Every structure is written in structure tokens, then in C-alpha cells.
């Protein structure tokens, strides 16, 4: 693959990371180098851009390869040593969106080159399916790997042309998937351990960023479970499972897990949940309690489980009404939202 310096300035994550970092390490040790001043400034600025724009967006400075290229690994080191997950996530996304915006302006050949650098099984096509023209055919395996966090309907595999193992994509869609790949690669880099002793000047910069942007965000923790339980606010999936359990009907393993983990998470006591399953024909108190305690995290691996997402419930036929909860993606979120409207009334 032939990458020009301009390419590396645009897509610095493609450069040999180890070599880049080694080089920057050396330079960081000699901070009096005046050239470095502008690199560090740009590095801090990259992070700041990601934190100040919404959605986060890092700019691209044309024809400044000498600063654009080395400022990237420096920014990585700075963001990583901030120790703030908020800064790390935000910065990774900012760089990924930067790459997306540059990619959609490129020729298809360049996109192909970048995709291949990530070992994608991809080829260029000029196929017309229906009346749409597609630019790339990508292995469904790579497709699934990179659409995992996407929730839009149009990115669901079932809504894509899939022929002989390849998903057909437009240029823009391929760039969107690459954005996700870039985001992951940068997040991985940011989570690597930094063993380097950084000069005070750099540490000060990092402290400033943290003070300014990461303060209150870090404190955000999961909403505490509300004290009271409102049956009327239960989403339809849970209501259905609950009434099936109470009338002793057979419920699938996943159904029982969903119901139990939901009730535990909204604060129901283990004994009360045991009682719900009492009408089941094969009820066994000891076993039921054991299973509930397992889901509650007081046994086994100690993991406290939450119910499956709406997506998963749909797949397994446990969502009785696809439209009832609007845009919500999780039964617990649906419950919280229903609680709010319920209280207003």
C-alpha cells in the first residue's frame, strides 16, 4: 500500500503506531526543541476540539503534515494519561468523525485502501441492485463487526442487500463503517497502559483539560432505582411475562431471566419474586431462589444481571408490541420513561 504524507496526515491512525510513539517518546524527552511546542499545542487542540464540538469533531489542517502527523500520537498519549473515560471516548469519536468527513470526499480507490489496511474483506463493485448503485461488497462478518453499536433500522443486516456472503454498500456507508473501525482502534490505543513519565508541562495541559471538561461528567452514575414500584409503568413485555408467571403458564428460560432481572433491577425483593413463580407446575422453592439469587449476583460469578435489550427480546419473540415503547431500547428505560409520564398524570 502506498500512503502519501498527505494521506497519513488525514488518517494518522494508519501509520505504524509503534514507530510513531517511539519517535515521539524521544522527542518528548527533549522538550526544549522549539518545533515540539507547536506539535504539543496542536495535540492539546485536537482533544479540545473533540470536547467542545457536539458531535465531537476534530479539524483537518491542510498542508501542515509536519504538525498534523506527529500531533496525533502526542494527543493519544495525552488523552490516555488523562485517565478520564469521558475524555478518551469523546476524543476517539472526534478523530473517527474527522476520518469519516475526509473519507467521503475521497475516490473509491482510497476508501478501499484504508479499508484494506484494517484487513477488511472488501472489493469494489459497480453493481446496480433494484435501481441503486453500489460501490463496495464487504464480507458480512466484517459488516457485523462494525455495525454492532449501530441502532438505525437501515443498518440492520436484514435490511441490506446480502449476496453470497457480501453486503453491498455505497461509498458513504462504507465510510460510516470505517468511522466505527477507526473509533475502536483509537479507543484501544487509549486504553493501553502508559508507562511513560511525562514532563510537567504536558501533565499541566492534561490537568487543564480534565478540570475544564471531565469534571461533572465523571460523576454521572446509573440512576438509582426508584423506591416505589408502579405496575402500570411496566413495559408490555414484562407485563405479559408477569401475568404468564402468575398464572403458572410455561415461560421460556430467557423469559424467566428477563422477568427476574427486570424485577430485581427495579428493586423487588428476592422473596417477592420467588412468590411470583409459585404457581408454576414444576415450582421448586429452593431451586427458584437459587436461580434468582444467581441473577441478583449474590451467587456464582457475582455478576448482577440486567434484562436483555429490546432488540434481543424482539429476536426471541418476547416483545409483544414493537411500537408500544417508541424509541426506547431497553425495558428498564421504557419503565423509567413510563414512570415519569405516570407521575405527571
Amino acid at each position: 500500500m502506498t500512503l502519501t504524507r498527505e494521506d497519513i496526515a488525514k488518517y494518522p491512525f494508519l501509520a505504524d503506531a509503534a514507530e510513531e510513539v517511539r519517535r515521539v517518546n524521544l522527542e518528548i524527552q527533549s522538550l526544549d526543541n522549539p518545533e515540539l511546542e507547536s506539535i504539543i499545542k496542536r495535540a492539546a487542540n485536537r482533544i479540545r476540539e473533540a470536547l467542545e464540538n457536539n458531535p465531537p469533531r476534530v479539524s483537518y489542517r491542510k498542508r501542515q503534515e509536519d504538525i498534523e502527523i506527529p500531533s496525533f500520537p502526542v494527543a493519544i498519549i495525552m488523552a490516555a494519561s488523562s485517565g478520564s473515560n469521558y475524555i478518551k471516548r469523546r476524543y476517539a469519536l472526534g478523530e473517527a468523525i474527522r476520518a469519516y468527513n475526509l473519507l467521503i470526499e475521497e475516490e473509491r480507490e482510497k476508501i478501499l485502501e484504508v479499508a484494506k489496511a484494517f484487513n477488511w474483506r472488501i472489493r469494489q463493485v459497480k453493481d446496480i441492485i433494484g435501481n441503486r448503485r453500489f460501490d463496495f461488497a464487504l464480507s458480512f462478518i466484517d459488516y457485523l463487526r462494525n455495525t454492532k453499536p449501530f441502532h438505525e433500522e437501515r443498518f440492520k443486516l436484514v435490511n441490506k442487500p446480502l449476496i453470497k456472503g457480501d453486503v453491498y454498500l455505497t461509498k458513504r456507508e462504507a465510510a460510516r463503517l470505517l468511522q466505527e473501525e477507526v473509533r475502536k482502534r483509537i479507543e484501544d490505543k487509549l486504553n493501553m497502559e502508559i508507562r511513560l513519565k511525562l514532563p510537567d508541562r504536558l501533565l499541566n495541559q492534561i490537568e487543564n483539560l480534565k478540570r475544564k471538561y471531565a469534571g461533572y461528567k465523571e460523576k454521572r452514575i446509573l440512576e438509582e432505582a426508584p423506591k416505589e414500584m408502579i405496575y402500570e409503568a411496566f413495559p408490555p413485555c414484562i407485563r405479559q411475562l408477569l401475568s404468564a408467571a402468575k398464572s403458572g403458564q410455561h415461560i421460556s428460560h430467557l423469559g424467566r431471566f428477563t422477568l427476574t432481572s427486570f424485577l430485581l433491577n427495579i428493586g423487588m425483593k428476592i422473596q417477592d419474586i420467588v412468590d411470583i413463580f409459585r404457581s408454576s407446575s414444576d415450582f421448586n422453592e429452593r431451586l427458584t431462589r437459587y436461580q434468582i439469587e444467581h441473577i441478583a449476583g449474590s451467587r456464582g460469578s457475582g455478576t448482577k444481571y440486567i434484562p436483555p435489550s429490546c432488540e434481543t427480546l424482539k429476536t426471541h419473540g418476547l416483545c409483544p408490541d414493537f411500537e408500544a415503547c417508541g424509541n426506547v431500547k431497553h425495558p428498564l428505560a421504557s419503565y423509567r420513561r413510563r414512570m415519569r409520564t405516570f407521575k405527571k398524570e
Partner: protein
Amino acid sequence: MNNTLFIHDRFAEFYKENASIIKPPSKISQREFGFFTFKKDIVIRHKGFLNVKDLRNYVKQIIPSHAYYSAAYYETPEESMEKKGWLGADLYFDIDADHIPTKCRKIHDTWKCKKCGFQGRGIAPAECPICSGRGFEERKWPCEICLESAKYEAIKLLDFLIDDFGFSHHEIQVSFSGHRGYHIQVESEKIRELDSSARKEIVDYITGTGLNPIYHGLQGTPRGRHVTSGPHMDEPGWRGRIARGTHEFLLSIRKEDLEDLSLKKKLIDEIISRREEILRSWEKEGPWSLIRGAGVETWKKIIGKAIESQSAIIDTVVTTDIHRLIRLPYTLHGKTGWLKTPIPAEKIEEFDPLSSAIAFKRGEATIYVEEAPEFRIGEETFGPYKNIKVELPLAAAIFLLCKDAAKVVD
């Protein structure tokens, strides 16, 4: 002699002679094995074998009523679940007549209230109509219609795997499960490490879950009142399926079918009266823009029926479970005495489970049959029986005993 002991002894004889046909999974040392035994409630899990000889000897020694291996590969399969070290898993599909709403179930499946003994047919109710008891013994019968409908789902699934997902025949292993369905396993380096959420997307693709036809060529005017175009039958993937399923639905359309979709009366009349024209339209652009007043939402309802018929009914939990235990090929199924039998994918159409999966080919046994519908084993048809003592070929006798429909006569 009691039934369990009798079955156990026949299984023992079978494995003594035939353990060598048990087909080991690939990378046997990375798989977990599990067994049910005839001793009540004894389940053996987390077993590992270094080679097939040890596995076959073990089966001969413990005589399992059911034998399983993991679709997953582990570093140390004998450790507890958390410590096994998951390395990957084959992609697995289970098609079971249990999930297919065949009409014959109402005839041959029975249930019996555990409390008062009241009996009925079809799927067990939530509550016994006599004593309100909630526990039932259910007996599901693997009849020919059920087995055929399971096979039909398996064939549809194979089309998805080959045409859409691009797997080759040598990566796909089809088996008759030994009871009421088919197993389809994809073994390929490229899918081994797929996580559960990726497998879920594959399931959604095959079941048509979350499918929106507007991404498959259904186009309308901006507000969706009129449809301007739609997919065609010879197109690949879901586009073609939508068109073919819609064609099929409209081919045999009855007024009631459209009423079930809660379409407006005027629209129903129009579709019914222009049926011929609609069918002819497939030679060109299809019927999508033909019917006035049928907008995007109307077509989505009709396409919903197409998706139902074109998707494959699979057990969604099996495919998304990356630690699943799977019946071991060429072992006996404890509910039938039949073998789990591998079939070459291209031979599935002519495959006859009721001949090929029969394990016990010699001998007879006399049993007392309480109740059994007519059934076939190989070329021979038996029954129906009700409260009668009969001498049957061993395969037929074992089958009824395994189904708990008969008692051994000493």
C-alpha cells in the same frame, strides 16, 4: 421388567456393537461433552476427550440416553463455565417441529393432567379444565407431516446459508435430529469467533425480524399513499423473497386472508376482482403500482405475509447461545431410539428419517400399547393402537417405549 431398564439394555447392546459409528466433532479435545443417563436426573457435564477412541469407550461404558457435544471450542473444556476459556463456536441452527404450527399437532400430540389424569389433544392448556391443575405430561409425536414441514424449513434455511451468506456445501453439515427436526451446523474459520450479538443479526436475517420492505425496493410517493415500484421475483436476497412470497400469497388469495390483514373493504374487493391482472403483472414490473389506494402501509401488511412464508422457522435461542450443547451425530435419541443422522446438504430432499435414522434393525419385542396413532418405521406401517398387547419389530417397540406410550410385557 420396567421400561427404562429394557431401553437401557437395548441401548447398551447397540453401543456395544456400533459405538464405532459415533462421529466425533472436529477438534475433539477443545469440545465439552455432556450426557444424560438412564438413572433418573443424572446429568454428566464438562467432560472432555482427547481422542475419539476414549469418547466411544466412554459411551459404551455409561450408556447415555442422550449424548451431546459443545458447538463451542474451549482451551480447557473440563473446567467450570467461567474458566473454560472460550475460543469460538460453530454456527448452529436447530429446526424443531415444536416451533412449527402444523395442523396435525391437534390430532397426535396429547397431554395428561398430572393431578387428576384428565387427557386432551394438541398443546396443553394453562390450566386443567377439570381440576385446575397446572402440571401436565405432554407427549409430542414425530409424525410424517411434522417431519416434512421441519424438512421444508431446513431447505429454506439452506437457501439462506448458501445464496445469501455464501457458505459452501462443504462448510455445512445437515443432520436429522433423531426426533422432530433437523440440525444445521456451519463450521468455518471465518464465523468461529462471531459473538452472540452478531449471531443474533444472522437470526434476524433468517427469520425476517426487523425487516422493512422500503430497504428492499418498495418505493412510494413521499407521503406513501401510492406505491411506485417494488422488488422483482428473480432478484437476489430478501428482495426476491419478498416478491416471490407476495406472488405466492396473491396466487391463492381468499377474501378472508385480506380481511385478516384488516384492509379496507373497497381495497379487498379491488384486489380480488383484479387477481388475474395482478398475476400477469409479475411478467413485467409486478403489481406494486397496479392497485389504486394500496399505499406503502397496505403493501407492508401484504409483504408481512410474504416474510412469514419465506423466512425459516429456527430456534432463535440455540443460534445465539455460544455455549450450546448439541446432540452427537450417530448417537441414540432417548425419546425415540432413533439416531441423529448426518445427511449431505444436497440430499436432504429425498432423505427419509423414518428409514435412515432407524438403529434397531433386528429382533422383536412384545409390548402393551396404551395409545399410539398410526406410525411408520422403514417400509412398514403400525397402529393405531389402543390398550393392546402386540409383538413388534424392535425398532417400533423401542420407539413406543421411549415415547412412554407402552409397557414391556415379560
